[in-house]
């Protein structure tokens, strides 16, 4: 089996705020394989975006600080790379698209100028060749008449078009990993579907890995292979998408899934998770979810000891004292092969990708 493309190992990030130091990311371990889509879900402020930005070292320092951990891209620790080599990684090996397409393009340059600058930076091509690459990239993301669009300014385009341009720009250098930070949140639902479909198609064509940051569980179910659920700066559950949706183990994940409206549901009110996300400056002791947890039931262990992420089944990690194993449901994944699962002594959570034909559509 091929090694993982990106491994985040016990990454911790601190921010010095006027109200004292906080840790938006605490001992987060994730891994992603080539061609895999990793979805990171969680409420606002749980550290999803900070984790994504820290992969590219885009955290402003100060106030941000790397407290520990490693980010390995094909064996190289990105956190130890000098800035010059890091610039080679940014855009060339790892590209990123942002949440807000309306402001992610520089208003004073044409679309073409902006794509060409990135292309000429990372590939040894002339400007004319770069313009052809840019035109092809625009064509690939489904923009009509790319030649004309190259010479247009961002303000002449709609939000969906701009997000397509952002994707074209990100993919023009053929990155191995694309980080999509809530790529569809600012778009309306029909455009959302188109953009996600586009990302899936491009992933099939190029074989790149995608880290999809979202809080839309529908998007996760449709697009992801592997899901990491984050709560209060930590990964609380990490599993294949089928396992997570069929057998959510962490009470927070269960709460999240319960709060999704279901077709044919006759309830008049949506279920919610009681309480709010704790303030990162004053995290509760023990399990960070215990004040809101319905299955705690006065267990003092939950209030005092923070549970570690443990593998309750091959390829299913949960950080909960009460999580039990479950028997594999024969319907969803009948012939999964877990022989390649990494040994337990490795800290990093890994879920090997299933061969493509076995993936549920």
């Amino acid at each position: 089996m091929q090694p993982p493309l990106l491994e985040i190992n016990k990454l911790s990030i601190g921010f010095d705020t006027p109200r004292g130091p906080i840790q938006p990311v605490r001992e987060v371990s994730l891994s992603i394989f080539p061609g895999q889509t990793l979805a990171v879900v969680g409420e606002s402020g749980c550290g999803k975006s900070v984790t994504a930005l820290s992969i590219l070292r885009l955290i402003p320092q100060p106030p941000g600080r790397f407290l520990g951990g490693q980010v390995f891209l094909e064996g190289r620790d990105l956190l130890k790379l000098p800035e010059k080599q890091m610039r080679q990684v940014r855009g060339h090996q790892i590209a990123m698209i942002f949440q807000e397409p309306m402001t992610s393009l520089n208003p004073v340059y044409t679309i073409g100028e902006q794509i060409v600058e990135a292309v000429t930076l990372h590939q040894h091509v002339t400007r004319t060749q770069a313009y052809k690459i840019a035109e092809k990239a625009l064509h690939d993301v489904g923009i009509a008449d790319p030649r004309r669009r190259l010479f247009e300014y961002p303000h002449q385009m709609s939000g969906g078009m701009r997000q397509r341009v952002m994707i074209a720009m990100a993919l023009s250098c053929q990155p191995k990993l694309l980080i999509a930070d809530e790529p569809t949140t600012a778009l309306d639902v029909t455009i959302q579907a188109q953009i996600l479909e586009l990302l899936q198609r491009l992933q099939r064509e190029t074989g790149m890995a995608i880290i999809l940051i979202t809080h839309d569980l529908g998007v996760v179910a449709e697009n992801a292979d592997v899901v990491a659920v984050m709560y209060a700066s930590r990964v609380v559950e990490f599993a294949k998408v089928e396992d997570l949706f069929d057998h959510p183990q962490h009470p927070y994940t269960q709460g999240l899934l319960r709060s999704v409206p279901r077709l044919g549901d006759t309830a008049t009110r949506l279920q919610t998770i009681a309480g709010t996300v704790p303030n990162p400056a004053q995290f509760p002791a023990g399990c960070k979810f215990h004040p809101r947890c319905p299955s705690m039931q006065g267990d003092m262990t939950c209030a005092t000891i923070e549970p570690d992420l443990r593998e309750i089944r091959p390829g299913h990690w949960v950080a909960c004292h009460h999580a039990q194993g479950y028997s594999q449901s024969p319907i969803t994944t009948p012939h999964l092969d877990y022989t390649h699962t990494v040994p337990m002594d490795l800290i990093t959570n890994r879920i090997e990708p299933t061969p493509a034909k076995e993936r549920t559509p």
Partner: protein
Amino acid sequence: MSSIASEPILDRAADVPPPPRSFIAQVMGQAFIRWSARIGAIWIALVAFCAAFAPFIANSEPFILKSRGTLSFPLFRGLHPVDIVLPVATIVGTIVLARRKMQFFASLCLVLWACALTAAASCWPSTADYLKQMQSLFGQSAAIVLLVCFWTGLAAVIVLAPIFISRRSTLITGLCLLPLLIWLMIYPVRPPKTVVYEKYRDLARAGQVDYALYAILPYSPSDRLRDMGDSAFLPPSATHPMGTEYAGADVLSRMIYACRIALAIGLISTGIARLIGVLVGGLMGYFAGTLDILGMRLIEIFEAIPTLFLLITFVAFYGRNLYAMMVIIGITGWTSTARFIRAEFLKLRKQDFVQAAIAAGLPLRSVLFRHMLPNGVTPVLVTTSFGIAAAILYESTLSFLGLGLIDEPSWGQMLNQARGVGASFVWWIAIYPGMAIFLTVLAYNLIGEALRDAIDPHLTKA
């Protein structure tokens, strides 16, 4: 959706895409559609033309003189290095700009570089004078150190400039050859120390001139017309379109030569100020934090320096030096630019497109000056137009107070001379330089305003 995507667009149009226009070219194109900006540009161009070709427009010495059978070229013998370098730079610049073969930015850099070289070359005579002063003040070693610094700086500019201009080796070769060319042209120039303007008119009166071709205005700015009888304060007439001043020199001729100082002091001092301001302000705004706090204190220190008094003090101690004046106006005038750029950069650094530019792996230089600066340069353009105007006015003020240059005419100095005998008011010496100052300041403002609107994409009609 899929039907659009599968359309064979690239096959249909496999030819080379149209040459991209750079951002500066687009802004220039949009700005100079306006008639106001065009009028401003025409006026500045007129001033620039006068500045570059002054000795060929107004000169008491004839181009060609045939006297008693011998042919001579007195005008060319009397030229200074500046008089050669300026027209050459102007002609080269115009040709380069008109051909439009080169990329706009590269050609602009070429012209600017030629101008910088011109400034350096024209700096040389006064530097030599300055060195003599330094030598008498501080001794020989300091003077040598200064000399070495000057030439090392110039050499560094010559070597480093092409690296920042373009990657194209052809351009670099061309640029390296240009100084050699100019040096070859100015090397044989040895202008005479004293010029006797009357001798040609004396020759003509004596009937010894067979043939002579004069410039359009046959009076040099320092030609006091001593052979013409009572020539002081002559009102405008056919021979002197703008009259004469207190010593009898032609006002129009002095006006034309004064264009040099007006252009140079405005552009160079404001250029120095904007360069420092953009660099300091940009770094302050981008890095924020400690650097920002230190930078703000630096700005406050520089804002506490009264420019005019510093200029007067400098002139009192070190004598009249135009280039020192430019530097002083430059290094005291950058604070407003730095404040504006800092504020803009503080706002821009958090913007998504700046984050996206960093995430795309662009180097800091590109992020700061290619992606942030054009978005934050708008207020600076406005301050630049006012800065040029202010610099011209500083020079005028100094000259009006009698602390400007003595031997070279400037508009402010002429305003000073508008006080005639017994403090009477000589209108033609007041009106014309006053109008020239006013129009130049207005022209810079019109251009600045058009640029401001052109650089703002929200105002452009899509």
